[in-house]
């Protein structure tokens, strides 16, 4: 029961992330910002996906999403911090 609901919720959040990233890119023309928003929503989706009883492929996908998100987010934050110096 919880696995079906959380996987559906993860799909909805993934779709929301794609919409948000597309709108952000169209409105601001800032690809890094759109990427950051997309990765935030994907992280939320990965966490929802992990709420279901885990399987190894799901764990691998969630771990990979989170590692990519962390790397991209770190790079974006460093770039923003450098602009302030």
């Amino acid at each position, binding site marked *: 029961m*919880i696995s079906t*609901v*959380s996987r559906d*919720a993860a799909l*909805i*959040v993934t779709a*929301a992330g794609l*919409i*948000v990233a597309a*709108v*952000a890119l169209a*409105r*601001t023309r800032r690809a890094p*910002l759109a990427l*950051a*928003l997309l990765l*935030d*929503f994907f*992280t*939320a*989706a990965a*966490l*929802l996906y*992990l*709420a279901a009883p*885990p*399987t*190894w492929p799901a*764990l691998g996908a*969630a*771990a990979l999403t*989170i590692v990519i998100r*962390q790397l991209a*987010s770190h790079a974006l*934050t460093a770039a*923003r*911090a450098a602009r*302030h110096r």
Partner: protein
Amino acid sequence: MTLAEGFGEHNLEDVVNVLVQVVEAAGALIIFVGAVIAFVRFLLVAFRREGLDPFARLRLDLGRFLVLGLEFQLAADILRTAVAPNFTELAQLATVAAIRTALNFFLGLEIKEETKLVQADKAAAATPATGATAPPATGAASPGTGPKPP
């Protein structure tokens, strides 16, 4: 009669499993609600742009929801260790807990960093505004309405 015999190991397992489901569902609900709120707020913000970068604050709020949801999910992981699973389940549980703990830690750091940057953005946005208003104020004060000498 020991407590385990009286209560029954299977009953305990059932109770823990129900608790795990409830806590895990609460965490998932928090994350889902946070994502929905972020989505709605994003659409509102995207179509009426404000001067200060509103997306940074939006990401910050989504991050806070993720951290809160993660705390619940970590609590569920800890509860799950109360019932002894087989080795595969235990390994998966350890992996999930490691992912969640690491993400919780990094999100916490990121929220701190992002809060600093949002405050720096605010300060940067306020500085030119005071610079722009200062010259007309002094200019307007100069022709006769300036402070009188003692």
